[in-house]
């Protein structure tokens, strides 16, 4: 425990903690819509799409997240647009944009004149390398989510019964764009913490755990955020104590909580 307290004195650990808490809150907040709308593949697709933006940032020598956020938001808008304009299913639209973005990412990286390990820190996450620039971007997304707080009720309504929400003049098409926008932004900023490869789990496990214990959507949202933040804190401590990568430690913490609760409920 002393080692953990000592580590907390270090600036990069403080940045990591701040980033982890913000990302834990955001991913688990938007994750409730991902889980209830059956959009797990969208979370994974957006994270992989972000790879294209990260690679572009590295190629241009700009802060990768600053490029990845708008890049992924454009991809997210494209996915919704394709879905609304065609009869293609959500998974097909995601699949198309996901592959194109990954392909672009690989091309951008091969065009980068110098060898860089940066891309790998984004693929597998590197919370201890979070910069103040990353924190600023995360803070901006956090603020944006606070300002769009009122959309929660409309998103929830359309998630429950889209036809009913439409009959109540809820602008579901516009709200789909807004949700995808917010989800894309939250997904990208989570990449530095858990990595592209694990982000889908970060969006799914805390809400799925909360769903096991709740009877209302508002309770599910709150509990999901509690699990999101708790798992980040525990995951970081475990990571520091056991000297293992932080992203996987967080995801494994979430998985342990999920299975314990699932088994306890099955037994009960």
């Amino acid at each position, binding site marked *: 425990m002393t080692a953990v307290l000592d580590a907390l004195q270090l600036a990069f650990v403080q940045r990591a903690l701040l980033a982890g808490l913000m990302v834990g809150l955001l991913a688990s907040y938007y994750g409730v819509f991902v889980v*209830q709308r059956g959009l797990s593949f969208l979370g994974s697709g957006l994270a992989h799409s972000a790879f294209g933006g990260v690679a572009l940032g590295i190629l241009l020598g700009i802060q990768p997240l600053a490029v990845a956020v708008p890049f992924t938001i454009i991809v997210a808008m494209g996915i919704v647009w394709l879905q609304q304009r065609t009869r293609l299913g959500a998974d097909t639209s995601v699949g198309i944009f996901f592959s194109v973005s990954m392909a672009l990412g690989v091309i951008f990286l091969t065009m980068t004149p110098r060898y860089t390990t940066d891309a790998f820190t984004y693929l597998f996450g590197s919370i201890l390398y979070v910069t103040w620039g990353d924190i600023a971007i995360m803070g901006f997304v956090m603020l944006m989510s606070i300002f769009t707080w009122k959309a*929660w*009720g*409309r998103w*929830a*309504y359309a*998630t*429950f*019964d*889209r*036809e*009913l929400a*439409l*009959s*109540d*003049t*809820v602008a579901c098409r516009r709200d789909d764009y807004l949700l995808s926008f917010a989800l894309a932004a939250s997904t990208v900023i989570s990449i530095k913490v858990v990595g592209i490869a694990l982000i889908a789990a970060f969006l799914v496990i805390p809400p799925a755990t909360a*769903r096991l214990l*709740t*009877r*209302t*959507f*508002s*309770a*599910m949202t709150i509990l999901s955020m509690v699990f999101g933040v708790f798992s980040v804190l525990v995951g970081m401590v475990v990571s520091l104590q056991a000297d293992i990568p932080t992203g996987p430690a967080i995801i494994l913490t979430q998985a342990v909580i999920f299975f314990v609760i699932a088994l306890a409920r099955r037994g009960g």
Partner: protein
Amino acid sequence: MTDPVVDCHDASVTLGEFQALRDVTMALDPGSFLAVMGPNGAGKSTFMKALMGLVPLSGGSITVLGNRPGEHVRREIGYIPQIKTLDRNFPALPMELVLTGLRGTWPWRITASERETAHEAMKIAGVDHRIGVPIGKLSGGELQRVYLARAFVREPKIVLLDEPATGMDRRGEADMYSVLDKYRSKHGATVIMITHDWEAAHHHATQVLLLDRGMIGYGAPGDVLVEDNMRRAFGHVGHHHSMTIPISGDCGA
């Protein structure tokens, strides 16, 4: 003379290249009970969506409570969709669903007065005893009553129902019509219901709109549900949904 609550003149809807509804002309007086009938793909749901302004007209005109569809005050129309459209795994209690009828959005928290209002609406719909049961655990009939309570909570002037009896047994159906009739007589509300149930149309409706993309007939059930119209709509007269289609006068409105 009172203004009609719904007034259609040659209303047509085209979805892509598909003509879903053609030249519907009818006027519905306040307090009426309209049964919208016809075979699958006849344009019944499209007609209802057109009333709510959810699909644009490609021709003609519709006014609802004197306004163009979609421009009515939200609380004036209570819509009860087919229950198959909802997500049964969504974590929700009946009271939350009922309160969407008041708020037009999903409630984050519920005030004491909202709780009381929702409880009262559920009592009218006869489902207040299931107030604490998650939506996913309700039977089809109970869920339909929760939707009725959701519609009633805003005391609408028009209640729209899309095949409300789906998944209900005969007793549940009878209870639902009794609740609807009580609400209609108490509030002078107009009921518009899509149904395949000819018997229910004869017993409860004051008007029937028979569609097969175009309008086959509109008027009192006894005048519309006649052999000639049945043949035009369904291509036959006989058994439908396990019951004999009653020809004019068999059941009496």
